[in-house]
Every structure is written in structure tokens, then in C-alpha cells.
């Protein structure tokens, strides 16, 4: 299972990479494996400011549909346009080209609630 050391994680199987006041968000390798072939990523919240835990989009796989949750609060500053034509990037490169949104971090203290790579690994192995 690929769980990069330089990222933070959530119980909803999302990863977060901090770049200054921006948080880049995607779903984990474990999540893409559970979902199976991703066929459609729908994100219509660009420009909106959402609280931690609110839904920012939906990912549809062949068999399942799952909501995507804000790992921290803030403005959805950018979304990955490439996913519109190539949703399978989420399967092929979940931590790279399969990223989903960039959040302008509202409250840096919320980052403290995120899981470390070790904690996330323990959670999915439990």
C-alpha cells in the first residue's frame, strides 16, 4: 500500500499536501483501489468557501458513488481540470496527476486534526 510520508490523511481516505497557505487534496491509493475504475469526478464548488467535513464533490466509479469531503475548511481555490477528460488519473496516479482540489486554508489549526502516515496506515490495516 502506497502511503507517502510527506502527506497528511483523513479517515475518509483523502490525502492533503501543504504548500504554504494552500492544501492540495486527493484520495489515497487505498481509496482508489476500493472504488475501482473511476469514471466521473464531479466538482462544482470552485470558488465556494466550505467548512471542514462539507461535501466538495462526488467521485463515481463503475459500481459506486462516493462523496468527497473537505479535510479542512477554506475556499475551493482550484480544481483539477484534467479529471474531466481523464477521470482514470485518480486510479493511475492518486497522489500526483489525480489530485482533485486546492483549498485556501482558512484555519491552520485544523491541520492538527489530520492523520499522520503512520496513523492512516494503522487505520486501514485495522
Amino acid at each position: 500500500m502506497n502511503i507517502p510520508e510527506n502527506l497528511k490523511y483523513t479517515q475518509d481516505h483523502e490525502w492533503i499536501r501543504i504548500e504554504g497557505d494552500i492544501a492540495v487534496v486527493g484520495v489515497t491509493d487505498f481509496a482508489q483501489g476500493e472504488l475501482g475504475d473511476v469514471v466521473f469526478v464531479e466538482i462544482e464548488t470552485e470558488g465556494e468557501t466550505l467548512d471542514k467535513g462539507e461535501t466538495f464533490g462526488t467521485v463515481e466509479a463503475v459500481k459506486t458513488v462516493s462523496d468527497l469531503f473537505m479535510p479542512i475548511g477554506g475556499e475551493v481555490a482550484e480544481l483539477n481540470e484534467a479529471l474531466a477528460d481523464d477521470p482514470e488519473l485518480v486510479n493511475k496516479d492518486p497522489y500526483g496527476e489525480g489530485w482533485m482540489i486546492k483549498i485556501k486554508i482558512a484555519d491552520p489549526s485544523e491541520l492538527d486534526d489530520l492523520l499522520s502516515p503512520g496513523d492512516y496506515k494503522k487505520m486501514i490495516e485495522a
Partner: protein
Amino acid sequence: MKKTALNSTHKRIGGKLVEFAGYEMPIKYSSINEEHLAVRNSVGVFDVSHMGEFWIEGPQALDLIKKITSNDPSVLAPGQAQYTCFPNGKGGIVDDLLVYCFEPTKYMMVVNASNIEKDWDWVVSKNSIGARLTNASDTISQLAVQGPNALKTLQKLTDINLSEIQFYTFVTGQMAGVDNIIISATGYTGAGGFELYFSNSVAEKMWNAIFEAGEEFDIKPVGLGARDTLRLEMGYCLYGNDIDDTTSPIEAGLGWITKFNNGREFIDREFLKMQKTEGVTRKLRGFVMLEKAIPRHGYEIVNENGNTIGTVTSGTMSPVLNKGIGLGYIAKEYSAFGTKINVKIRNKLMPAEVVKLPFI
């Protein structure tokens, strides 16, 4: 949880196993899309040993089947199979199934795994005339070998000329050195191929022989995920989704397996005949999404004013069309081919069009 005889094989080759109808079954091995396309373009193998098999034997066998199934089993000659359903006495469906005629006094029913117990109780309860019944579900394994290269794959394993086995007929004979294999030219994919029935004890041997024979065709194991997308592209009904105890075969478009000929008295005959003559208020229809969207079981179907006119019973992204496709019960007024409808997806109305089946 119950396991098929191939459970450890699925685990060894990396199948992702989930609970389905009380069995631990592979939902996929590599990817649903890849497995789907392997069946459409070459050949794939499904372990469907979870399905149930009942033997109906004796001089009363045919009379029992005539009474409890919607299709007419008296047209079956030995070596022929038939798709049919059990009407439930209340206008609904107990299950859909295949009936195989071995002899005029010997038949096999193949039923859905999720309904084995319910079907068995139902058949037993209707058997006042004394046919001999055996529930062989736990001793028989079934592999579906499907796709345009299924015949070439299996032909390497048997002297029986497989190209002579017509659609919906079967033979019993030797394959891969094993006797008494039921070789049936049937399937749930629309891709052609065979369904094989044999004893649990030879399941691994058969699996290995088939994969060796199919290597040159890049044969793939296929899970229940692709089984669902394959059947949906053909518009085949799935019990529990598209048909159930509350849907009639006439509403479900299964009029072609509901036969009223020769005055045959069967369960729900009068009710179904009335529906066939007078029409029904809703029909199971296929529809294609006109924008990028995927319909799912339970989503509402609405008209241009947002009023509910139906419900989605099955939906997926078609791997062949790369479009959202679905089946659903739609009010008669909106059921004509070409009618524009909408599917309510996350509170948005997404346009769709009623189309003829199959989708591909």
C-alpha cells in the same frame, strides 16, 4: 459466509472478495472495465457456483414445472434450455431461472443465489403432485466461459463439436478429461460462450484447464462487477434490482417468457393475461444519459416539470458506450422509445432518452 470450491483460487490470483447473497465472491480481479472488455473482445471466466440447482424428476416433473413457471416447458426437447420465471401468486416474481430438459422426466432448474432458500421452499410448497425434488446447490459448481473466443478456448478441451451446440441447448460429456460436464450454450453477457456445470470436486481442475487453454486469447478471470455491467449493456434483468416480488413479468418486458398457449393453467395466469391484454401502467425501459452522468438503483425518474414518473432499477457507466445507461420502471405515457426523460441525480435533473434494448 459460504464459499465456492474456487474460493482459495480467487484469493491466490488477487480477486477482491466481497459478501454476495451469503457467499464470499470475487467482485473484481484487476479492473471492472478491463474484465468487461476482455469478455466483449476475447474471453473471460466467471465463477458462478453460488447459483442454485434443483433437480425435478419423475412422471410428475413436467406437470409441476408447467404449473409454477411462466414460460411453457412442454415445448422443451431433451437437450434444450429455457429462460422463465416463477410468478408469485400476487402478480410478482419469486425468481427468474433457467430450466434444462434432460429427459421428459428429468429437469434441472438454475436459480439465483440470493433466492435459493426462498425458491426451494416455494417449489416444495407447490409440489402436491409428487415430483421428486433435489436441492443440489451445494454440490454443483458452475463456470461461465464467455466471449467471442470462448468456443475456441473450450474446443481444445473436448472432442464434442461445440459449434454444433445451438444457443439455449446443451450436451453432457467429457471436457478436460472429466466426464459428465454439462456444457450449455447460454450466458448472461450477450458475448456468446458457454456455461459449464460440474461437481465441486473437479472445480479447480476445470478452472486450471480452461485458463491454460485460453492463454493464447489472453483469457481473464471476471468478477461480479463486470458480470453486472455486461448484463446491463444487454438489458438483461437482475432479480432484486429490476424484477422482484412486486413487479410483474409483463411490466418487466418479460411477456416473451409468459406463455398462455394450450390453456395451460399456471400461477397468476389470469392476472398476467389481463395485464397483457389491457396493458400496464408502467414499463421497464432502458435509457441512455444525454450528458455525463451515471444513473443508480433507486434514483427518481422525472418529467420536464420535475414530477416523478418512475424509478431507476439498475444503472452504470457502459464500458463500451462510455455513457451512463440504466433500466427503470417508467409510467406508460413516457415509455415510448425516443421519449426524453430526466434522472434526478444529487438534486439535479440530468436528461436521458428512452431507448430500445440492448444498449449495444
